[in-house]
């Protein structure tokens, strides 16, 4: 592309080439976005992920239910006095993922544990009321969570996540 005719005014010519190349690059990148963004959740999926309300009255002390929100299982556990005590007597500093039991529940509703029932190791669903800590046991790779959903033993790196929720009344929560 270096020939005699360009020698007299190389800058103007270079500017044109750079401008065209830049415009092509901008256009290509802008065009790519719709092709990528289409993989994100669509509007109906987002709408279906709206908050849900759960009535707590049927859950007796020591029992739990599993509800689904955004396709994820949520454990709602009505903890016994013993479970609460166990969760609070552990020295926080000794935990793998230190967090107080109080920080994982809503104050005034101490018996209610609401956690996303997905093992933080590789996504299996732990079984409630199993394992050595009166909490959850994941059958896939043996992770054990206590009655506050905190990781106590096994390969999982973090506590069971607490979903966003609030109490609408004493017997009803809204998740999401």
């Amino acid at each position, binding site marked *: 592309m270096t020939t005699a005719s360009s020698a007299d005014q190389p800058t103007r010519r270079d500017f044109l080439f750079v401008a065209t190349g830049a*415009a092509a690059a*901008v256009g290509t990148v802008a065009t790519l976005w*719709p092709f990528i963004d*289409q*993989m*994100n959740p*669509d509007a109906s999926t987002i709408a*279906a992920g709206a908050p849900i309300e759960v009535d707590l009255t049927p859950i007796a002390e020591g029992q739990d239910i599993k509800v689904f929100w955004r396709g994820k299982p949520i454990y709602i556990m009505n903890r016994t006095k013993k479970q609460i005590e166990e969760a609070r007597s552990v020295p926080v500093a000794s935990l793998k993922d230190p967090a107080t039991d109080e920080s994982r529940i809503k104050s005034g509703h101490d018996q209610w544990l609401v956690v996303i029932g997905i093992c933080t190791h590789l996504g299996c669903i732990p079984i409630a009321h199993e394992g050595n800590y009166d909490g959850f046991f994941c059958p896939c790779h043996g992770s054990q969570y206590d009655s506050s959903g905190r990781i106590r033993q096994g390969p999982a790196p973090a506590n069971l996540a607490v979903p966003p929720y609030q109490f609408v009344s004493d017997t009803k929560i809204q998740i999401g």
Partner: protein
Amino acid sequence: MSGPSDYQPSHPALKWIERRLPIMGFIHSSFVAYPTPRNLNYWWTFGAILSFMLAAQIVTGVILAMHYTPEATMAFRSVELIVRDVNYGWLLRNMHAAGASMFFFAVYVHMFRGLYYGSYKEPREVLWILGVIIYLLMMATGFMGYVLPWGQMSFWGATVITNLFSAIPYVGDSIVTLLWGGYSVGNPTLNRFFSLHYLLPFLIAGVVVLHVWALHVAGQGNPAGVEPKTEKDTVPFTPYATIKDLFGVSVFLLLFSWFIFYMPNYLGDADNYIPANPGVTPAHIVPEWYYLPFYAILRSIPNKLAGVIAMFSAILVLVFLPWLDTAKTRSCKYRPLAKQFFWIFVIVCILLGYLGSQPPEGIYVIAGRVLTVCYFAYFLILMPLLSRIEKPRPLPNSIADDVLAKTGSKVTPMVSTVIALMVAGGLFAGSVQSARAEDETPPSQKWSFAGPFGKYDRAALQRGLKVYKEVCSNCHALSYIAFRNLGDPGGPGYSEAQVKAFAAEYKIKDGPNDQGDMFERPGRPADYFPSPFPNEQAARAANGGAAPPDLSLIAKARSYERGFPWFIFDFFTQFQEQGPNYIVGILTGFEDTPPAGVTIPEGSYYNKYFPGHAIKMPKPLSDGQVTFDDGSPATVQQYAHDVATFLMWAAEPHMEERKQLGMQVFVFLVIFCGLMYFTKKKVWADAH
């Protein structure tokens, strides 16, 4: 593809790879150093445009397949959900649908170019035949793709085209059953068409590789039709051909974008927005425009088997072109007679296409037969004859001579313009005659959403929703619209709280609950408008045998013929408001007493704009029926206008986004094409 490359990589890593897999050298010799005739005109850029279109179709198609459901009861809805809910789904679908038409448009230009410049002649016969194979594969792919949305035209197109094979003696019926995977077109047919529609483009890509390979062995043809002799006759592929091709592609993108952003339904058929119904054939069934000439040939032959043979022969005759035309001179530029007949042939093809879109009756049938004879005569009689009797003009000594001489060929455009004008006049006269016989079309209304800057009138949308809710919803479903849509940008513009309150007024069936019972609960924004009838049978029974159609898509599913030449003007004025015009026409077109000589069956009503005039729906709107809060007049005219606006939004909720993005794309493309033009000029300044 063009002998050993002199490409020498400098980086040690590249050298290491090159010794083991000389791919860079291969690309360099095929697409960089490859000598290309220096006199190629812009008709030659269509090869690059076609490569681009194939890639675009594959990419958008793979993406659409991520969201599409190939199942007979869900396919239609899944396509609608792509358009409504998937991020940029409307854009991707428009790209793929318009892309098919653009692909065919480009391939026709490419084929006519080959025909004009004798690109099929020795030593390029195999190259040409590979092209015909690609074209056949494209036709199969396009046909099966059109079936996938599972609308009325999809279904009946599939039925008609597969039935072509039933013309084969003895085994025809068995073949058709085999194609269907059942006793009629149904879910198995849809499934296999989806599978094949995904497969064939990759076969096309494979044959394209052979096509390009053959091209690089024989070398490109050129407008002069003389082979390059010295180095002066050629320029390296990069940058010269590359930049010219890219400029061609960017200009082509302008046309493509016009369809994507402004005329997405111009080339489609309104009937395909009606879900497939195996019990009713659309009154006027036509294939996509790119098959129309062959469809016209099929219909001109009054015998089933002969018609099918004629149609396939019309394509297969192209394979034999290199041996039908034995003239030594390649380019029509130097063949005065062949040139004229070429343009006549182009017009014959266009006219056949027009006839293919018209009902097969009266003058159209006769014209179809005459043109079918012309089509075959061009290949079978004229070409061999011309090869023998025509005396070609002297050829230039070399391509370099041709470039320098700039032979004056001003006559061609003039002749073709005159012929084109005559044809246009003929079509115009013909359509005026046929228009007289046709029913009155609904008058065009003023719409705020028309044109490139169109926006929905929010107040009209809200009033229209009220009319729908209070009147239409008693019989008509709106099942593709969720309450949440009422708060979407570009819609009626309700707030989140208003949407919630609106939804809560509805009772939605949900369940089963823990006891296994279905129950009713207040609506939520994510719910869809509930249908007035539990199923189609109930709707039919309650409405005198005619099920009231779902209104979600009615504004796109109803249309009327614009006729020649209006449909050509519409392309430039972006007129696409037939749907809303028709809705207003129907709602205001009721007359208590039918005109003299028209009898309306019991249980039907006379409507001026309804096809056949006998409509089962009684006059739904009367003055004062709905009260508007904003003081708009409570008249049928106002109701009709507002509800048509609302239904247009329901049919195309992303229209505003489409037009806004379209404007940005056009500003960019025009600037980019300008830059490309000057860049191309600068690059080529060295070559001339």
